[in-house]
């Protein structure tokens, strides 16, 4: 694996009328060739600024951003434009040229890159076919739905066969069904064309469905990063936990806990379910080893990056001593939270 994008202690400050706005505050990260890297954060966290440093739509105030092994700061105007033709970009609002037809939009970067007319026409046909919108080639953007517009955006961004694709909130303006279509398309771009994708989003399900690795941003800093499964399964910051709660509904909220407490008189425990089989082992041991009864009262198990993932809330009933022994055992072998009554 080689890093195609490298941030080393990057800071970006926007001067303002009074004082200054620190959009990025000492960010270091590495994005590997061929991966889908998610950057998640609330609006204003600095993620849009971060992605714009990669193709030099913005310049770092301090620190070094390197792309394809070269610090972008060293590039001349011509070299910057050459770099940009190796990096595609798609946008939340699609940013299609309203005055141009679909095929003319896709053709535009090819004209910039100096392709001749015949090759341009072939490439446009090929791209529209790839994104599944060939029948709309003569239409104008105003005649397209949001999902179709983003497909055109993707085709246009891929025209010059870039090695990197930057997706800036690319699905945030789309409905859920269209979002998953576009995400599937991005996966194909990654799988079939080997394009490294940087996905900027405030939606956890986007990261969950396509990213290999993720960085969580808050107030200009990366507060957590790593493999999606690892970050999801052991969140270390409050920001990450808040994002997780938007996609994981298996952890009972305070209201639900109140209901559970009145309905189930036994002791309640919340157990994480991971792919190490720990939880199922505990549950099967419960009856056999400790003679207690276990009932699942809340929770769910889903799949994350092809591995089981979830949380169960269980009620344990039995003789007080047996339940006590089981509770001790639980705490020793797993990260378990007991519901306080």
């Amino acid at each position, binding site marked *: 694996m080689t890093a195609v994008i490298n941030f080393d202690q990057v800071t970006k400050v926007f001067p303002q009328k009074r004082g200054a706005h620190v959009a990025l505050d000492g960010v270091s990260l590495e994005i590997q060739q061929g991966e889908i890297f998610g950057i998640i954060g609330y609006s204003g966290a600095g993620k849009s600024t971060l992605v714009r440093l990669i*193709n030099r*739509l913005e310049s770092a105030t301090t620190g070094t951003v390197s792309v394809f092994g070269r610090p972008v700061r060293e590039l001349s*105007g011509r070299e*910057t*434009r*050459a*770099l*940009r*033709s190796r*990096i595609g*970009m798609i*946008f939340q*609002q699609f*940013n*299609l*040229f*309203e*005055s*141009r037809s679909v095929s003319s939009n896709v053709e*535009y*970067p090819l004209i*910039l*890159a100096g392709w001749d007319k015949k090759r341009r026409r072939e490439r446009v046909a090929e791209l529209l076919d790839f994104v599944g919108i060939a029948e709309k080639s003569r239409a*104008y953007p*105003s005649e397209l739905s949001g999902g179709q517009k983003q497909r055109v955006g993707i085709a*246009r961004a891929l025209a*010059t066969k870039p090695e990197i694709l*930057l997706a800036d909130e690319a699905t945030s303006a789309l409905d859920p069904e269209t979002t998953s279509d576009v995400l599937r398309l991005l996966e194909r771009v990654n799988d079939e064309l080997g394009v490294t994708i940087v996905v900027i989003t405030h939606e956890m399900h986007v990261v969950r469905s396509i990213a290999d690795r993720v960085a969580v941003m808050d107030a200009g800093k990366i507060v957590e990063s790593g493999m999606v499964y690892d970050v999801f399964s052991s969140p270390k910051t409050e920001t990450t936990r808040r994002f997780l709660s938007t996609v994981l509904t298996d952890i009972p909220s305070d209201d639900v806990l109140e209901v559970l407490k009145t309905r189930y008189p036994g002791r309640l425990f919340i157990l994480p379910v991971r792919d190490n089989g720990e939880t199922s082992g505990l549950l099967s041991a419960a009856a056999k080893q400790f003679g207690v009864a276990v009932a699942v009262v809340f929770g769910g198990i889903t799949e994350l990056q092809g591995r089981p993932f979830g949380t169960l809330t269980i009620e344990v009933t039995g003789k007080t001593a047996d339940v006590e022994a089981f509770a001790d055992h639980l705490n020793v072998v797993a990260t378990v939270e007991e519901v306080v009554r």
Partner: protein
Amino acid sequence: MKLEFDRLIALLVTALGQTLYMVAATVVIAGLLGLVVGILLFTTRRGGILHNVWVYTVLNIVVNIVRPIPFIILVFAIGPVTRAVVGTTLGVNAAVFVMCVAATFGISRIVEQNLVATDPGVIEAAKAMGAGPLRIIWSVLIPEALGPLILGYTFVMVAIVDMSAMVGAIGGGGLGSFALEYGYQRYDWTVTFVTVVVIIAIVQLAQLLGNALSRKALRR
């Protein structure tokens, strides 16, 4: 009486020709100059693709000085300049020069306003694809703003017809002179009335044409 009528019609046709010439020449010359100045105003402002504080400040001040001067006063005020450039302050060409000066600055603001209204995201997309500033101006900015630009130019054209009538007062020729000399000064209301109808017809035609073109550009 019959002879007088024929003579007036001939004069009206000549005046109409002069007006059309003045308007057309001004629309073309001031249209291009105003487009350039307007584009510079938009692109050199803070955050623009040709960001340049000095160019922007100077242009902005010049436009703000020239534009508020009432046209009829501008005509006299730049008389020496007109004489230096055209060789005279009378006649159709002198009128075209003065009208160009006034219209260029008016058009530049209209162009600037319409460009400001274009989606900055589209400019960013073009930049991200590796387009340079000049390329963005002619292949993105102008096409994207074309519909509103045509409407803006149509609006200006009506103002230019108005100016062309006004220069008639100072010997510029055209329909303005005609209405003054043969209508107003000879108390012939019919002549004045007919001239007004002709001017209205020109304006209506210009507006219809502008609307049709902009609709085509906007594809609505």
